[in-house]
């Protein structure tokens, strides 16, 4: 079993195949950007992109990404050059505690790849299942709108 992780092929260790993909990424591959928040796919803190679609790593069996392409927040920047969504997040001072933001950013990246010029309704629809307790939602909206101008 193998998958493409941020552009590079990796084997899925057999004893990790039944683990949630989130833990394979965090504990085996040391990609700790995606977070554990609820374990049942409700909060979105573990959002990654699988074959172009935003997905919840906490409810995907690791073995089930065999042959698929997985992108995590660690794969967004090109060296020191930030992805426009990352830059917009900094420009708008979005993060408070920051814990949900990797998931928010990955959902936003997936949205802009599908809908390059989203309306605020598009944003609300795409982002509504990514929870943030600090209340950064207004800034997430604003950051996505300004990133859309850069993408």
């Amino acid at each position, binding site marked *: 079993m193998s998958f493409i992780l941020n552009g590079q092929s990796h084997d899925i260790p057999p*004893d990790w195949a*039944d*683990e949630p993909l989130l833990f394979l990424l965090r504990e085996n591959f040391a990609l700790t950007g995606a977070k554990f928040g609820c374990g049942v796919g409700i909060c979105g803190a573990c959002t990654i992109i699988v074959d172009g679609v935003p997905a919840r790593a906490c409810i995907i069996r690791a073995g089930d990404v065999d042959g698929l392409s997985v992108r995590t927040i660690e794969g967004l920047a090109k060296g020191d050059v930030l992805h426009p969504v990352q830059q917009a997040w*900094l420009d708008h*001072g979005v993060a408070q*505690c920051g814990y949900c933001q990797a998931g928010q950013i990955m959902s936003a990246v997936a949205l802009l790849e599908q809908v390059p010029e989203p309306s605020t309704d598009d944003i609300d629809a795409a982002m509504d299942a990514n*929870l943030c*307790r600090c*209340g*950064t939602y207004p800034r997430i909206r604003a950051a996505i709108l300004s990133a859309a101008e850069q993408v």
Partner: protein
Amino acid sequence: MRRRAFLAAASGGLVVLIGAGGGVWSRVPVIPKRPDPDAGQALGWIAHMDGRFTLTLPRAEMGQNIATALKQIVCTELGVEWDTVDVVLHTTDMPRVKATVGSESVMLFAEPLAQACAALREALSAGHVAGQVRVTPRPRADLRAFRAGGLIGSSPEITQGRGIVFGAPLYAADVRLPGMLYGRVLRAPASVEVQTGPLRWNPDAARAVSGFVAVVEECGPPIGQAQGLGIIADRPGTLDAIAEALALEWSVAGQHPRSDIARAIDVDARLSTGALPHVVLDGAPDDGLWDVDMRLDVPMAAHGPIEPRAAVASLQDGALQVWAGTQDAFYIRDFIADAFGLPVKTVTVQSCRIGGAFGGKTICTVEAEAAALTLATGNPVKVQWTRAQEYALGFHRPPSSHRIRARVAQGRITDWDHAQMSSHIMFTAAVVPSWMQRGTDMFAGDGGVARGMAAPYVLGRARAAYDTVRLPVHTGPWRGLGAGPNALAIESAMHEAALVAGIDPLAFRLAHIADPFLAAVLVRAGEIAAWGHVPAPVQGLRLGRGIACGTYKDTSHAAAVADVAVDSQGRVRVTQMWCVHDCGLVINPDQVRAQCEGNLIWSLGMVLSDDLPTAAGHVAAQTFADAPIPRMSDVPPITVELIQSDRPPQGAGETAIVVAPGAIANAIRAATGRRPVRFPVRAEDLAT
């Protein structure tokens, strides 16, 4: 390195036994120590070497972005470039600092830090590069950091912001160590105030699960009275399968006597048995009929941080190192040393960025679990609570029940009576055992429940009093403590009193305000929201606008206006909010705004959704679906205006939560003619 010698850390003597009568010995729990910071201590937070400075953050970083604001203070007072100062989060190797609570980080820590930096600046400019620096405190007016201009009043990129957008390992659960295992401590699905513990389990079935490492019976102190059973695996996802295979049976020492929580805090039932013991306002309202007489009930609520609390512990050469996302690393250290009989100097706690705390990550739970499992196995162990554990084993905003009354004559409130029944906040049952709580109940009351109960108005003959009852679910500090629910009750009553008086609610409030700073934010909120403007009707919707104002901890002020639309089925949408905020001199306006925005969204939750369901004396919620928090589509356009002020900086993390819930509730009243009295509001109560 230029650094004052560390003060001796207070420690030792924490484990003492005292008599509690009848030959029963009760162990005194470890109680958090809360020393205020001073400038001498602050010298320990700033270090200089070869032209670079390191700020060891004396506060926990949990999204208030205090790392940024205090770095602004440091750079300004030292007169150095932004990039020459590195910020690191503290460990318990430094002298004790108080817990990061109460919106105090700028209010209490900015000046000592600035004094220390001013002293260091002078020493460096005099050519001193070694030895001790002495701080001679200077008048605040002489400190550069307390004058607007330059970095003060600007909003640089937030510290750790780049790490957040890169997904860097900043949080406790991100720590990875060689040989690390994954643990969980299972506890009974019952009240944490009832003695419970593991009775029988199937070790063979657990052993058969791939990835199983151990079952650990010595798994640390109970949470409340819930003794656990530890399990360890070499992969985190395996823990669920092991827990299931164990088929644990629990011993449960009966039902908690106050399992019916709503009944236990029913203020009217309590008032029928006599006066409430803890008096906040001691006026004597006249007997007779009241113009306003309402009962408001606010339920239990979870903090709901997206990060379930986590810790990693590691034992090396007899020294225990713990990585924790905690509001009080020193308390965690002291608690663990006490619980496991370790010398305090052998325990070090590294504070990590916290993934949301809101008052809820002040106690020692998951950290002691990780320590116990590490001590049992010798391996480093990571423990992160499940979402269900967060609900079941954390403490929560207590439910509160309010009876609030007002009498109005000639446009003024002449008599006022606010009675509240709640559960403990400061003297939380999560830390304070019941025998000790009986003492605090008798002599001290609970300042957390009292917070905000003294209305910020001149109210004639005004009485406010409360009582507390220990509940089967732990309660404690939650953003704003009692001030949020108290202000919701007060602002609801003020609106009703204004209606009785036939006076506009803004003008009515102004007539009762003595504090010019509070009056100023109220007037300004009216201006920016065009108060008095009547929105154009929308077919099928009832529209309303509400206003509220308030003061948090005596010194920071806010006012809010909210617009709502209520449909025929009674569903409420907040369509716009405005907030004016005065927290004195603002160090970082963008992040103060962020705190206001967060509070406004918490206010939406307080009125429309916050509720933590319980059943049979324990929390019934398992996931966010059972205890929903606001989502993006709930959030309307928000306008925040900060008052420019040269008052010393005050707290900003909890102020707006005392005003926006009242504004929203009053808007619902204006839209529907119905006074929300039971929170969260229910659509069926507002349907046409």
